[in-house]
């Protein structure tokens, strides 16, 4: 990755930031909408609150943004968390059950939900960091059994939260407005800002990148790579829990089968588009957020064009595959051969030969 980047730098004299391609895609998509769906950019003000397609994209996209933020740090350590969708379902089920079957109130319910998500993340982290199981495999276990756990907690059915219990707090989280914008946007923005400050203003970000780039070298430098790995999985679990609460608050129903279904792929996609490589190392939170918004814009655009929501995965899959192909070494090589001229190939292959 860094090698390709440095080559790019020497040839063009300018190195695009990691989020560049995601931003380019988002701009392109918005441009298409500018021409074909003029109403896409209309923003109305009713009762002091903003409404419109763009607000809607941010509102619906906030779950994806929250999941992508958690996933970014996991991917940066060279791992992946396939269980976030199941954790979304578990957290939603816990909150709904505590709220409907006990008298303990919304604060306890949300705390219980986040605790469940925390435990799930910690379980993943222990499997990966201490038992040295490959992340895909370790998180697959929770992906499989998580749906069952959520169903068991919810009593094999969907749990609807009655309006009198949901009001005012839960209802506000899902559908309320803060500063004229839907509250989920506030949650996602707050999480992003806090995470960004924590990661970039302290040494945490550096530790995560170093563990992702080379775990054994990091250990030799005195970094406790296990604790770093454990913390990123716990954080991803926490983000999934937050997403589960937003999801539950938004629709008022905890659906253990469909809540967060396939959202792990959306999150991984957002992270990849945002310029973080699956191999770990350098990461971009901003890129992941833009990636998540890009995906949501794509979905909203498709719905506006009248594509049924069940069919929408097809163009999504095509876009995901295209992005992955563009990032693959083979395609990069082709581009180099087409645009880079003869000399750069030679130096590239010499460098490769020397490094291997």
């Amino acid at each position: 990755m860094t090698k390709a980047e440095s080559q790019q730098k020497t040839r063009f004299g300018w190195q695009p930031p990691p989020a560049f391609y995601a931003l380019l895609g988002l701009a392109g998509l918005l441009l298409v909408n500018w021409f074909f769906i003029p109403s896409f950019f209309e923003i109305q003000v009713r009762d002091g609150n903003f409404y419109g397609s763009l607000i809607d994209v941010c509102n619906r996209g906030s779950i994806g943004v929250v999941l992508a933020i958690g996933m970014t740090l996991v991917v940066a350590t060279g791992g992946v968390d396939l269980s976030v969708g199941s954790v979304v379902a578990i957290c939603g089920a816990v909150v709904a059950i505590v709220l409907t079957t006990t008298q303990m109130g919304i604060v306890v319910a949300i705390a219980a939900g986040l605790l469940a998500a925390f435990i799930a993340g910690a379980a993943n982290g222990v499997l990966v960091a201490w038992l040295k199981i490959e992340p895909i495999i370790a998180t697959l276990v929770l992906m499989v059994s998580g749906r069952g756990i959520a169903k068991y907690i919810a009593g094999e059915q969907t749990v609807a939260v009655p309006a009198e219990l949901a009001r005012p707090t839960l209802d506000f989280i899902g559908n309320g407005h803060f500063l004229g914008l839907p509250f989920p946007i506030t949650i996602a923005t707050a999480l992003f800002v806090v995470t960004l400050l924590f990661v970039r203003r302290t040494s945490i970000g550096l530790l995560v990148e170093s563990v992702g780039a080379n775990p054994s070298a990091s250990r030799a430098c005195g970094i406790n790579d296990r604790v770093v790995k454990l913390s990123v999985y716990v954080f991803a679990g926490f983000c999934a829990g937050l997403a589960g609460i937003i999801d539950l608050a938004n629709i008022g129903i905890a659906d253990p089968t469909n809540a967060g279904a396939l959202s792990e792929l959306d999150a991984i996609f957002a992270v990849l588009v945002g310029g973080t490589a699956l191999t770990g190392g350098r990461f971009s939170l901003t890129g992941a957020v833009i990636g998540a918004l890009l995906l949501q814009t794509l979905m909203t655009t498709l719905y506006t064009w009248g594509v049924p929501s069940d069919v929408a995965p097809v163009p999504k899959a095509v876009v995901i595959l295209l992005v992955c192909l563009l990032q693959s070494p083979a395609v990069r090589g082709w581009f180099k051969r087409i645009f880079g001229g003869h000399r750069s190939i030679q130096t590239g292959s010499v460098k490769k030969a020397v490094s291997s």
Partner: protein
Amino acid sequence: MSLIARLNVTLLTTAAVLVVLFGSASLWFENFFSPFVISDLFSENAFLGISALGMTLVILSGGIDLSVGAVIGFTTIFVATLIAEHDVSPWLAWPIALGVGTAYGAAMGAIIHFFKLPAFLVTLAGLFFARGMAFCVTQQSVQIRNETYEMVSEITIPFGEAEIGFTSIVFLVLLAAIAWVANFSPLGRNVFAIGGDEESAVLMGLPVASTKVAVYAFNGFCSALAGIAMTLYMDSGNPINAIGLELDVIAVVVIGGTLLSGGVGSFSGTLLGFLIYGTIYQITYFANLGSSIATIAIGALLLAFILLQQLLTPR
């Protein structure tokens, strides 16, 4: 080398788990130890077993395929629509579906190999694509009323007082065939070699590219066959069929002792994993427990076997 030492430890554990599960269930529930339960166990899960055979080969080669559930769902609605709404004979619809599944698997395998992309990512995109295409065909369930389907469902082999159904026979025949290919043919040896260490396989001059594409193509074929088996079992097709089935399939393969890192495993193990899976579902059915308990139990068993593999794999 003694016989005990040559047998895989995980395979023995799997067999022990099966014996303990089935034995205790037989003692606990009346009528559990009967040919009817065993024949149910096969016919209810035959499609899963067929899919697990393809998945075993993929995992042996060091890869993974998350798209099987979606391809199965697509095949059920594709076949059902062809037969019920376009009056295509099943004898034509089935080969078409098998061809589509095989080509789909081959395409994913080619992308994985030639562009050096992670298998789980490509096949996850494949999952989305196939599931979306299934809804493109039709958005609701399609019934199949066809003479061939009635005829095929009457093909059975007597098993005690019960009968083994057609799809179970297909599963067992395919199992025997693929086990032979894996153990006694150059293709099988190449798969094991690639799964063990792909770089070494390349250096040894083995046909890595064609083998990997063939493995994914075979898995696509198995998914399509499993989809056809599902239409035979349910007499209908539905785009929402087999959602999340890939996880069950992977669980069956891993419980059967195949290492997720590739290179080690067996088809007899997959058969044992399949039987354990079926037994767990039969037990929850006998005990009137919800399906969530079965899912959790399979997840727990999956975790236990992954930990066991981790213990046994030298590092």
